[in-house]
């Protein structure tokens, strides 16, 4: 019954085999949409680009809830995750499987605007706390971010103004 419902909701059959040049996977049907608003976060991408695995969305909600209780006036800016079917999401190279999330670092003025590690508006202390919370979560595998003064992140070109969070499932 569940499979039938999933099948009906998908534009393509879910066989796991290549059909018409597209590789299909049953996992695609389990993607969830991050609610456009909630405690402790705000979104900076359209909803069409904010689908993730159940575990990834739960991780985000966990971290955001924690953020809300600790710093209610400093929500996390959440960007791209994946498309609803896990298809390639230009202009990203990754973000295909619902397990990559882009987050904004925090600003000292708490405005819902971008910042980067070399800018005066960048709040290292609060961003470091966010990194610690993320790394303490059981579903976070790795964080790409270029502030080498924050322990636990991995540097990668292009990550001065966002944290690229990879989850395990």
């Amino acid at each position: 019954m569940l499979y039938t419902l999933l099948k009906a909701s998908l534009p393509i059959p879910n066989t796991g085999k290549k059909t018409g040049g597209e590789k299909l996977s049953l996992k695609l049907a389990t993607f969830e949409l991050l609610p456009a608003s909630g405690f402790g976060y705000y979104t900076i991408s359209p909803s069409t680009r904010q689908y993730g695995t159940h575990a990834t969305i739960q991780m985000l909600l966990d971290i955001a809830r924690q953020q809300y209780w600790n710093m209610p006036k400093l929500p996390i800016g959440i960007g791209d995750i994946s498309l609803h079917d896990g298809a390639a999401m230009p202009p990203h190279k990754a973000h295909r499987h619902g397990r990559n999330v882009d987050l904004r670092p925090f600003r000292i003025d708490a405005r819902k605007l971008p910042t980067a590690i070399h800018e005066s508006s960048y709040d290292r202390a609060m961003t470091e706390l966010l990194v610690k919370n993320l790394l303490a979560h059981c579903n976070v595998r790795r964080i790409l971010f270029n502030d080498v003064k924050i322990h636990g992140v991995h540097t990668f070109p292009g990550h001065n103004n966002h944290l690229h969070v990879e989850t395990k499932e």
Partner: protein
Amino acid sequence: MWKRKSSVLQRYFAIDAIVLIAGSIAANSSIQGAPRAAQAHFSISVQFDCLWWSEPQMDGMDPNHPPPKNTRVKLKRWEYTDPIGVPHPDIVDVAVQIRNDSARDGIAILPEVNIQWFEGALNNKASAKWGRKIRLAKPTSFRLAPGETKSIRFPIDIASEMAALSTARQWPWALRAVVTTSASGVTVGSTQLELPIIPGD
């Protein structure tokens, strides 16, 4: 309009994107019938720019219902790292500004733009190569009075180029524009500028 910037946007658009050329031409008397000794001088600046959101628009923007982009910003690079804060427009303009610095009047000015894409595999920038030169639509010539300035924009559809390449997992890693300006049939300036195009991770 050329000076409108927000503090956030300034971080991403360097002033050095402007290339300034002081052009000088000995007017061709056989074409214009002007005295051979007469000289005309032009200042020509060229930059990439686009329409994007202003800082007040970005602050707390609902990404599902974004307002129209109506702030013109200078582009040092096209970059997809923040869906709102870092410009990655569908259309990039080559903006050419020409000022007649001389006392001469009635000289026909004609700017022309040729572009090239630096294209290669999305996962391997080293594979990219410069493609063929493409001439943008030729504008009609115009005349500038002494001290007068005119701005012309040549729009380039970056989104369409990306879409055309995406099926083969290709990417336009850079855009090159060569702006050649002539006055009364004589080239007075040629400027080349490049726009790095950086995909998201």
